[in-house]
């Protein structure tokens, strides 16, 4: 099932105005199930390489399974990072000049805990946060519910240009992103959010976080150093550019200035 173009158009509008959007049915059931299996295989491979899937800096306990380096681990994730509907939402918010910053998984198993409230942009970029410079495309490989650890967000917080603009006690205004398996959730980098505890008895909540930034920002991951040269040689020009594998970067604004073209 492919979502109709009207659904994509509605998601684009929602993203621009409310700072988030859900697009249903981007992955059909079989693909979603297969991707989840490959995620667990990737997690096992990642641990076999000697990396831990528990990140104490992010999570209070090991029931949150984090897999970095998805793009190095399985070609199915390299397909998802440039999936056309996801990219349509990325370009709607960030414009044509973007880079992939990171692509990670977070599987919240029963008993997993909550992160601190943050916006992705505020973690990195100085105030004022006047425009979106970053965006997450969250791939839901399972149903995402309040009980199983849905991401919680503060509605309208993407308009906060500073910490003061958030107002008092933003935690009290948190609401969950709930979505069906196979959906994508697009989230403006300025939207304040946290993960919730998984309070179910036996239900995993598996999400992939495809994180994109404007091309002048440094990525979370250094793909030049991460990706094996033999793998890099197999990547197409679009992916090479989006991963920042070119020798010269961050020259878009300079070119626009001389050409008197509109600033990207």
């Amino acid at each position, binding site marked *: 099932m492919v979502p109709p173009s009207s659904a994509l158009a509605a998601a684009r509008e929602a993203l621009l105005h409310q700072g988030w959007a859900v697009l249903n049915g981007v992955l059909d059931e079989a693909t979603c199930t297969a991707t989840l299996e490959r995620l667990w295989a990737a997690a096992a491979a990642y641990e076999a390489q000697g990396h831990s899937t528990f990140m104490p800096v992010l999570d209070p306990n090991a029931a949150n399974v984090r897999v970095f380096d998805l793009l190095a681990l399985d070609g199915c994730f390299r397909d998802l990072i440039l999936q056309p509907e996801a990219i349509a939402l990325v370009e709607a918010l960030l414009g044509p000049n973007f880079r992939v910053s990171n692509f990670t998984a977070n599987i919240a198993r029963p008993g997993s805990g909550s992160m601190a409230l943050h916006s992705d942009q505020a973690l990195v970029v*100085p105030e004022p946060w006047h425009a979106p410079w970053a965006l997450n495309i969250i791939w839901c490989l399972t149903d995402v519910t309040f009980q199983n650890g849905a991401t919680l967000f503060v509605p309208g917080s993407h308009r906060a240009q500073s910490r003061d603009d958030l107002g008092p006690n933003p935690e009290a205004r948190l609401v969950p992103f709930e979505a069906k398996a196979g959906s994508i959730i697009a989230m403006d980098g300025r939207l304040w959010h946290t993960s919730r505890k998984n309070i179910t008895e036996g239900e995993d909540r598996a999400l992939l976080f495809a994180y994109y930034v404007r091309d002048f920002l440094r990525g979370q991951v250094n793909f030049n*150093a*991460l990706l094996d040269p033999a793998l890099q040689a197999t990547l197409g020009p679009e992916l090479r550019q989006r991963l920042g594998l070119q020798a010269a970067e961050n020259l*878009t604004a300079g070119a626009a*200035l*001389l050409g008197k073209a509109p600033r990207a």
Partner: protein
Amino acid sequence: MAMPPAPSGAAFFPSPTRDLAEGLANLRTQGLTIFPGLLEGRSLQRARDALYRAAEDDAARGRHQAFSLDYAQDRSNRRVWNVLSRDPIFEDLAFHPDALAYVKGVLGWPALLGNLSANITGPGGGEMVLHADQIFVPEPWAPEPQGLNIAWCLDDFRESNGATRFVPGSHRLNRPPQGQEGVEEARPLEAPAGSAVIFESRVWHQTGNNRTADEHRAGVFAWYTKPIYRPQENWFLSLRPEVRDFASEEALVLLGYRTEGLGLVHGRSPA
């Protein structure tokens, strides 16, 4: 918004100084400072020779490296990118302790080396669009500079040979120039070979026009940024490996090999 008042005569630019506190004060008030004699004697000669040799090697092989901020009709300006990989002497410039004291004083630490490139103006060439170096940051800008440029003068910089033109104080407007704004006010910053002109990323400047008949003027520009920005030079792809192999801790930070949160490999710093 009115331009800051432009003082006349010798006071247009701050007096050259080797004192860090005075230099940092110049950067705050004028957006730039001049460090005289940062490179001297054999070091200066060696850097100059290495740069001209690199430019000649590129020219002999047809490796023309134009830059998007040069005017298209300019056939005389020569750019050399990735200067850091061309000769070890340039490591001495990029990682010079006095230079890094300014990087830390203006940007804090860690910082990144975004680029180390050279610009050699030739007869009839050179002139560049008046700009601020942090134009890649969308406006409105945060109230602090996001980058710092250190121009190493390998030849005397004179008005006639294309000395960089500046509008001191323009950084306080905290935005790029609009239209022809600032072009009238910009003045050439003349400095003897071996000087470093240290300017923050919001101050308006442009390469000057080289009006000489037969003179070239070489400058190496070390561009540093706060660590959230993507370097212009992808060091992981283009750096000569032994630079990394023998790099100091500070150099590893500047090249992106010592990192937290950004630029990670397997969720960790790559070195």
